[in-house]
């Protein structure tokens, strides 16, 4: 993985020292809150419902054991013993004290981490496919390009005061696990007819108040042109994006207003100027330098068949279930990709305790070639586990309540922190997630239902990505009461779609039954056991589902 060079290390340390001075001046009254707020936001520090919240960047979701252990340390020493992994592959701490934050950032700098640009109107954490570099369906590893974009976008002088936040996602596989069509810029590595690898560029996707599936504005971009082309996209946005209304300031609004073809034309026009300037083509030496950090690790030469594993599956039914739900085929024989669910039935989606983080750090070091990743579904991934070690990994996970066998199933609920934590929320999302998880706490039922993405947001900002849930739930406030609207038919895959609101909302206690009615209808109507929920919905359309949802016994 990427290691800081002297420039990076100095840069981050200087930023910590700078923020320490800013906090000091704030506490002494030399900076007002109006002056301090944009500065603390640029260092990822929010003021939330009960306390400050620090959002730490985990670039494209990748961590080493040492880094995970540091995150555990921060949770224990400066917070209340836990952290929350987010839908943008970051981690959030909910209870830091302002005077401690510079020290927290100093500790992060010790392990080559920071909280820069995790808030504010700038380019945020670049997210990527959590199976990058190891997925069998990958064309090329997106992580070196994510790192290149990170370096280009960090404190970019021209793009530090954008009209609004800016989110970039990148994937390198046939299956899009990074939701690129729902980002301000989405990038997909693919091969053209000549067999060359380049980028498909999507611009103007997004969720929130105005969910939009982003259009492709360029079907093939040569790799060396990546930064100059991104520069052109951002320049057009920076120039023409609205600044009069924060709800109309994202790039998706601009692309919709002028049209994708016109936006593409404006970018091409700007790009000519950028290419002629100092940015130009990324030097191959620089691409090579960064790619060397992501060279495949020293895999052993192992057979793919692992008889001991088969024996364990026969002996231990729970392990077999976990094996079937949580593992993904690795491109190297004898290895497996293990997804760790942070969605135990009575847990909080995406939360992990400091003790759990320490265990995960150990697992990464012992069993995953010192690497662990965060997914935008609020889970974690051990990307390089030898098949012969899977059972031992599983038993350790099970001992620490990390072995929920629900990846991609109904139990794998994605939920924002909601009104329990967030200043922007209208309703709570965590209790609803727990009620649904308890209602469907039956492995056989989960298996029967099959692949199901259920996303919950506590407000229209959609941090739970409810618009792209196969089932989405949006919490609203109706005359002081929390009510939950249900959407169906969303998807963040390459065939992305925005979910459709079914009708009036439900009180919290009624939501599990509402979900049950939808799923009972699906199970009765699906063409066969292999027809996924989302496919059944697309085949039948919303009307029969709506009728089932609002039917009363």
């Amino acid at each position: 993985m990427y290691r800081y060079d002297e420039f990076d290390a100095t840069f981050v340390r200087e930023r910590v020292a700078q923020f320490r001075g800013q906090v000091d001046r704030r506490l002494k009254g030399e900076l007002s809150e109006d002056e301090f707020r944009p500065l603390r936001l640029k260092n990822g520090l929010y003021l939330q419902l009960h306390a400050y919240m620090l959002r730490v960047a985990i670039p494209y979701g990748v961590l080493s054991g040492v880094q995970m252990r540091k995150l555990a340390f921060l949770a224990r020493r400066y917070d209340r013993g836990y952290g929350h992994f987010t839908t943008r592959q970051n981690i959030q701490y909910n209870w830091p004290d302002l005077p401690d934050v510079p020290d927290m950032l100093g500790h992060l700098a010790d392990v080559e981490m920071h909280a820069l640009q995790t808030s504010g109107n700038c380019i945020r954490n670049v997210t990527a496919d959590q199976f990058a570099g190891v997925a069998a369906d990958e064309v090329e590893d997106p992580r070196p390009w994510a790192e290149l974009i990170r370096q280009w976008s960090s404190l970019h002088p021209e793009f530090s005061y954008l009209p609004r936040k800016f989110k970039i996602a990148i994937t390198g596989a046939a299956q899009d696990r990074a939701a690129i069509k729902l980002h301000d810029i989405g990038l997909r590595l693919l091969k053209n007819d000549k067999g060359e690898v380049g980028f498909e560029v999507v611009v103007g996707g997004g969720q929130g108040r105005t969910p939009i599936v982003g259009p492709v504005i360029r079907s093939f971009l040569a790799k060396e042109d990546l930064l100059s082309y991104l520069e052109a996209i951002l320049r057009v946005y920076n120039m023409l994006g609205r600044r009069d209304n924060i709800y109309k300031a994202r790039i998706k609004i601009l692309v919709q207003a002028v049209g994708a073809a016109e936006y593409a034309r404006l970018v091409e026009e700007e790009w000519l100027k950028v290419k002629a300037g100092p940015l130009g083509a990324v030097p191959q030496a620089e691409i090579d330098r960064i790619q060397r950090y992501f060279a495949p690790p020293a895999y052993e030469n192992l057979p793919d068949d692992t008889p001991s594993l088969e024996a364990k599956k026969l002996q231990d039914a729970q392990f077999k279930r976990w094996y079937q739900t949580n593992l993904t085929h690795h491109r190297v024989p004898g290895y497996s990709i293990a997804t760790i669910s942070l969605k135990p039935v009575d847990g909080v989606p995406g939360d992990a305790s400091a003790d759990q983080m320490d265990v995960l750090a150990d697992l990464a070091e012992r069993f995953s070639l010192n690497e662990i990743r965060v997914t935008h579904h609020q889970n974690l991934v051990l990307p390089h586990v030898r098949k012969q070690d899977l059972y031992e990994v599983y038993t350790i996970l099970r001992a620490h309540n990390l072995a929920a066998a629900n990846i991609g199933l109904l139990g794998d609920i994605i939920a924002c922190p909601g009104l329990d934590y967030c200043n922007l929320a209208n309703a709570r999302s965590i209790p609803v997630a727990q009620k649904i998880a308890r209602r469907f706490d039956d492995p056989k039922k989960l298996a029967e239902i099959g692949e199901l993405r259920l996303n919950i947001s506590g407000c229209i900002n959609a941090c739970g990505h409810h618009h792209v849930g196969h089932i989405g739930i949006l919490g609203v406030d109706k005359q002081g009461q929390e009510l939950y609207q249900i959407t169906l038919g969303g998807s963040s895959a390459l065939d992305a779609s925005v979910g459709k609101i079914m009708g009036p909302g439900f009180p919290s206690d009624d939501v599990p039954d509402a979900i049950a009615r939808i799923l009972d209808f699906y199970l009765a109507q699906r063409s066969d056991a292999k027809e996924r929920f989302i496919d059944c919905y697309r085949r039948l359309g919303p009307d029969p589902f709506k009728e089932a949802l609002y039917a009363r016994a």
Partner: protein
Amino acid sequence: MKVLTANRLKDGAVVYFGKNGNWLEQLSEAQILAEPSQLEEAKKRAQEDEKSQLIVAAYDFEVEPGQKGPVALSMREKIRAAHEPTILYDQGSWVTTDRVKNVSL
């Protein structure tokens, strides 16, 4: 009737404007600002206290009188008054608290 609330600068904790003009953690001890003039006066004090690095982000919200002091009407203010999420991380596990329901003081 209203109450003025803010976050403490140092730790972001929820506080309420009290009868003595200080900032208190318990909603039950907050001063009920029944008259517009009282609210205005409290807001002026809040502005000064923000300048003295005591608090940030002051605003007012609706309450009703309870047996032991003001009671929040909205779910948001009930949760803030409890100073905790309704799902609490406690000694290794996540537990549902009833603090929000019991916040009527």
